[in-house]
């Protein structure tokens, strides 16, 4: 899979994003890391230009509530509703429902073993292969829990 790993907003915590990016690479994926401080518009543009099938969003600054929906809307409005989107970092449980409703398919917090992230991706890819809805713009109640 071609995966874009992104760091939106002013958040400078990049360890988690790098750890996950490396784990995904070691899982055999092609990972494109955006670097720090990207706007939602820039991230949508990168997903498009790289023709990525999956987008990872890492955020620890507390701005997930506004940034993540903006990215999801941007993808949907750019014909990229088929992209699988998942997130990680410091995202309290109470905020997750709203993100799932936007089309995010998984949220991983601190201490997540990277093997679980790979398991999620495997499941998401299987769904995509079976033509089950799993993209950010596709209607489904499914998410990783």
């Amino acid at each position, binding site marked *: 899979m071609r995966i874009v790993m992104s760091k939106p907003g002013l958040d400078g915590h990049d360890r988690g994003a790098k750890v996950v*990016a*490396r784990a*995904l*690479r*070691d*899982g*055999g*994926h*092609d*990972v*494109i*890391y*955006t*670097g720090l401080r*990207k706007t939602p518009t*820039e991230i949508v*543009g*990168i997903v*498009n*230009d*790289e*023709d990525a099938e999956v987008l990872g969003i890492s955020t620890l600054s507390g701005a997930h509530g506004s940034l993540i929906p903006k990215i999801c809307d941007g993808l949907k409005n*750019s*014909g*990229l509703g088929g992209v699988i989107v998942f997130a990680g970092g410091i995202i309290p449980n109470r905020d997750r429902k709203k993100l799932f409703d936007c089309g995010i398919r998984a949220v991983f917090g601190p201490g997540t073993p990277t093997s679980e992230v790979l398991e999620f991706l495997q499941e998401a890819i299987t769904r995509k292969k079976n033509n089950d809805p799993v993209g950010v713009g596709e209607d489904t109640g499914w998410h990783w829990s």
Partner: protein
Amino acid sequence: MALELTKIQDLMDAAKSGDRRSLSQLLTAIQSGEKIPETTSDPWTLGVTGPPGVGKSTLIGKLVERWKSSGERVAILAIDPSSPITGGSLLADRIRMGGHASGKDVFLRSIPSGKDVAGISPFIGEMCSILSECGWSRIIIETVGAGQSEISIIAFADRILLIDGPDRGDIIQAEKAGLMEISDIIAVNKSDLPGAEAAAREIALSLSLVEGDERKVHLVSAIEGHGIDELIQEIESCNLNSGSKILRMKQRLLSSWNSLLTEHHEIDTLLDELCDGSITVSDAIRHMAITLEFGDE
């Protein structure tokens, strides 16, 4: 997943009228081996190569910044190696190009080179043609200059910039692999660090040993912006008919020929026959040469 020919044509039409989504999908189609109708465009291409970490991406970021402000639309194909063990890759050139790697006048595609670096070279030429057809006026190909297989990629650029760093001695490797020969412009980056000047002198010395070699060595600092104007000037005025052109054409011919041979419909049978000794290598070549199939027929 073979796309139908009409689908490809639709993508091309949409991409040419400025739809970035279609352009992006078209590049993916090319990379997965899809045949694209010939274009008439004449792409402006620059290859940037050199040892790992010398600052290729950072320097490209600077070039992009200058070109963007003079109204050019810049596309970059950044080729990075994949892990030979897992097959995965971490494509990080984008980070170093900084803020200049996105926006409406910049298009960056990261390309994992896979197990077989030389194997992607035939696609590069097609990607450049499509990008040019879609109005990208400057096309940059970045690849780590490590060996013979990278030469087959960079040869698809019409002008080649070889970058080295201070105190690396890596240029000697590059020379071994023929990268020095095929390059039109040579620069030593990180002139803000000690050792850069000495490295530049050393390279200049080795160039001066070849009679008629007029290339000079540029000292630049991608981070501090020194020497960039002169470098751009040299890139813009680069003589496309220099001695390296014939080397480039030879590389292009070789890699296209290679891919024709490896795509030959009988290759598996021929390999089996070679293994059991029922034919010789020259038998195989002769047979393949007269039964070659071309994509455009």
